[in-house]
């Protein structure tokens, strides 16, 4: 069985179908790009895989265990300890410095202040933004902020990192730096990465691509898929 799998995932928002029977398998340590046009269900799929959203039907299994049926509390615990998430922007707390932002997930998990700060500084350094440790997000460029967000997502050393258009708000050079760091660090840590993007250049950072089309996987890339269940 795969490290992370989805079987027949169905999810609607009211009467709008977003996922219509998605199957997907991700192996440990893989960096998988999930691609497809806007509105095809990428974000919904990511949220279901990360235990943020519950599918209407279908199953999500992670390391041999079903997680879609877990309670809200158990899924929240999973997200705190095993999963990391990275969104397009706006994840950093504006009132906190970069180091405080990165230390936050550790503090929430009960790590001591000093230890959390040391870890935060080390992660900021690995992302090349150590100089901004005591600056607030508003004093950094978009690319620097997003590198802090990567540090914050990785500081807990998650087993799986879920990224939703992580460079969507950046120019291409800044995006390249974020992705370069992210992919290098994920490989060093053997972190499994699910990278959602509509951009082929971003998808090319992955080992493999899963194409979505109208709420279902499109393995042939022909653009016409029948919903599977």
């Amino acid at each position, binding site marked *: 069985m795969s490290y992370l799998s989805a079987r027949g995932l169905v999810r609607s928002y009211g009467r709008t179908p977003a996922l219509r029977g998605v199957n997907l398998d991700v192996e440990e340590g893989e960096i998988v790009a999930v691609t497809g046009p806007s509105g095809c269900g990428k974000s919904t799929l990511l949220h279901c895989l990360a235990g943020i959203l519950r599918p209407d039907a279908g199953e999500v299994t992670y390391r041999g265990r079903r997680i879609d049926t877990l309670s809200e509390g158990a899924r929240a615990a999973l997200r705190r300890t095993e999963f990391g998430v990275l969104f397009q922007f706006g994840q950093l707390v504006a009132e906190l410095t970069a180091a405080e932002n990165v230390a936050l997930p550790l503090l929430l998990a009960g790590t001591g202040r000093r230890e959390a700060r040391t870890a935060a500084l080390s992660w900021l350094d690995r992302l090349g933004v150590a100089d901004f440790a005591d600056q607030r997000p508003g004093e950094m460029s978009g690319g620097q902020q997003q590198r802090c967000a990567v540090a914050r997502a990785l500081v807990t050393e998650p087993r799986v990192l879920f990224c939703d258009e992580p460079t969507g708000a950046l120019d291409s050079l800044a995006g390249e730096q974020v992705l370069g760091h992210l992919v*290098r660090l994920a490989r060093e840590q053997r972190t499994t990465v699910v990278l959602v993007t509509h951009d*082929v250049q971003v998808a*090319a950072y992955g080992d493999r691509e899963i194409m979505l089309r109208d709420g279902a996987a499109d393995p*042939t*890339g*022909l*653009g*016409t898929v029948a919903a599977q269940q």
Partner: protein
Amino acid sequence: MSTPHVLLGLLVDGPKHGYDLKRAHDLKLPRAKPVAFGQVYATLGRLVRDGLVVPAGQDRDAGPDRTSYELTEEGRKALKEWIAAVEAPMPHLSSVLLAKVVVALLVGDVNQAREYLAAQRAAHTTRLRELTGVKTDPDASLSDVIAADFGIAHLDADLRWLQTTLDRVADLHREVTTR
């Protein structure tokens, strides 16, 4: 083709043998097709004829491949002019892609057009991933990175067109098959 000027450029920092030129060409332009020895010697012959390079001595065991070549003043001037000249903004590779799709549609084989497009898209995606790997290699030099960027930007443009065309042809396919 730009091979003559690339060879001129490789001679800027001093005379080189044909063999060194081939090696330097393939090293500096890792994304271009490797240049054949025969092409290097033929090109050098033409450059000598045009006065852009001159033979600059031979090794002891003199053969044609042991002659080294040197840039002339004329050659330097030609190189400068070539660099300054803007290229006609024409698509290159994509014209072949276009031709195949147009021909497939002419033949009336919508399915073959779709299958070709999907397969070409997959091949482009694989290449894009390879070039991205070149770029993220910590040992990549600046010229490796900018050469990879060049390839990536062109593949990206082709991929956008491939995807849009695939969508259009899929619409056409639906029309044809549901009629």
